[in-house]
């Protein structure tokens, strides 16, 4: 401990010396670099959807409306009913399988937040043409996937109010970080306790 203190004192002294000689300390913010980002520009580019629904746009859809869309836009890769195909993952099923020998991780069995389904469809799907779906279509496809997984009824209207309220089956199935881990070996693992999670 004493050695540490001596070391930091020396470090401090040498820093002071350097500063006085070349007048170079850490620059203080702001440096005035960059230009203001207009609110309009931000809202045009901001794709983030938070688990509490922040960022969800207007629009609505039901599973009934989503079924024909799924056939056109999704079934070629994910199967007629979301069962998956050779190189593409299933989106449906696996409820109750996680604790067993053959876990099947799908939207229904594994994903903890319904907002993530909406976000990922808008962000990345359909694979050859991401960003091409209208917001109503994204709501309808989300509703259809939740319906196929037995999470919402076929006629339930999904919109920016109802979507974040949906409680996914595996919502409480996760442990955050390596926290509390003493395996496989014990060591000091910094910063695991400071993750701030959604309510």
């Amino acid at each position, binding site marked *: 401990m004493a050695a540490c203190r001596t070391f930091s004192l020396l470090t401090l002294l040498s820093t002071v010396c350097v500063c006085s000689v070349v007048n170079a300390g850490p*620059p203080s*913010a*702001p*440096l005035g*670099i*960059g*230009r*203001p*980002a207009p*609110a309009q*520009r*931000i809202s045009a*580019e*901001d*794709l*983030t*959807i*938070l*688990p*509490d629904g922040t960022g969800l746009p207007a629009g609505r859809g039901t599973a009934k409306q989503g079924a024909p869309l799924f056939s056109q836009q999704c079934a070629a890769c994910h199967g007629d009913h979301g069962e998956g195909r050779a*190189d*593409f993952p299933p989106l449906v099923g696996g409820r109750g399988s*996680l*604790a*067993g020998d053959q*876990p099947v*991780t799908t939207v229904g069995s*594994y*994903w*903890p*937040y319904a*907002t*993530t389904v909406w*976000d*990922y469809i808008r*962000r*990345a799907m359909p*694979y050859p043409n*991401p*960003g091409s779906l209208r917001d109503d279509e994204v709501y309808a496809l989300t509703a259809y996937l939740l319906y196929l997984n037995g999470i919402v009824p076929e006629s339930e209207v999904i919109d920016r109010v109802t979507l974040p309220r949906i409680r996914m089956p595996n919502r409480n*199935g*996760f*442990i*955050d*970080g*390596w926290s509390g881990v003493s*395996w*496989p*070996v*014990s*060591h*000091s*693992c*910094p*910063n695991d306790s*400071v*993750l*701030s*999670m*959604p309510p």
Partner: protein
Amino acid sequence: MADMIRRRALLGGGAAAVGAGLVIPDVAASRDLGAGRSGYSDRSKYENAQRVFRPSATPGTGASRTPLQDLYGIITPSSLHYERHHSGVPSIDPAQYELLLHGLVTRPLRFSLDELRQFPSVSRIHFIECAGNAGREHRGEPAPTVQISHGLLSCSEWTGVLLSTLLQEAGLKDSAQWIVAEGADAARHTRSIPIHKALDDVIVAYGQNGEAIRPEQGYPLRLVVPGWEGNINVKWLRRLQVANQPAMSRDESSSYTDLLPDGRARRFTFEMQTNSVITRPSGGQHLQERGFHEITGLAWSGYGRITRVEVSVDGGGSWRDAELQTPVLSKALTRFRVPWRWVGEEAVLQSRATDETGYVQPTREVLVAARGMKEGPDGFNHYHGIKPWKVNRDGSVSHI
């Protein structure tokens, strides 16, 4: 003098035997004028180290692996840095490019590349490793070569501006807890980074190994999140949003999670844990003769500096300390070397790393006992068990 003239005459005819059994190969004898200068050079035409990858259903999706067995030192040539894309490599015109920084800040800002280069800069050497690297070892399907087992691992000198500098410029609000980063690839890959890491050592990088970042590595701008799983090192960075919670994007809330025996899963398991692997001799190589061979490999830890690498040549019966190439850098690859004399017998070679937090690289058995055998949505992540190679009597090296 007469001898010299005669020798020249002989050499002019190509490879030639001179005197009693002395052969001077063409290459040493050639006096042809060499090639001229060039604006940007390629490697020797005789060199052929390659990334390897399997075809995938969608060509823009998947990974290619670094030939660790062919590399020297700790820096991965930019052309051989492993790749992992979700929707292909976008082509981005830097003149049209801007980074957007907004959310819980007092001054939402946008930056051109020139403006980003105006900031105080850092250059730091860090590894990037895919969370799924060596996952097949966990599964019990040991790879035949180190490129296949551990090739989702590379190390570069990254140059850019610290994320903390940009966040200070924009002014963080008190409620700031997470930074949501988003790429400009077609799928708009996105991950959330806790504020403590964002303010620590994350680099918004435009340089890789002394030049602009390669397109496959995120040109013109990427995040380097030292020591953390590759997926969070967002490439083609277009947007940074300060938030009070993680976005729970697909890649952080369901992919890149670690499924446990009881059916629960760990998420936000960011750090790539203490690891090492012998790259020479390694699977697929062949010891041509008995006698001296150097055993060399790479060690790394997402927690900090490597402090020790031990090597065993008898299947873990005994261990000796390897020499670590200096300087040993935090969250960078560390080259280790140990001299060895191969007497022509079978030998099982393996390495075991320790880092500055005291984490000792475990065996596969210990890891499997602790984490079980359940595969998550993208297989096994964060495997870092000891990897043995077997040297056979004929000098061939294979996996166990």
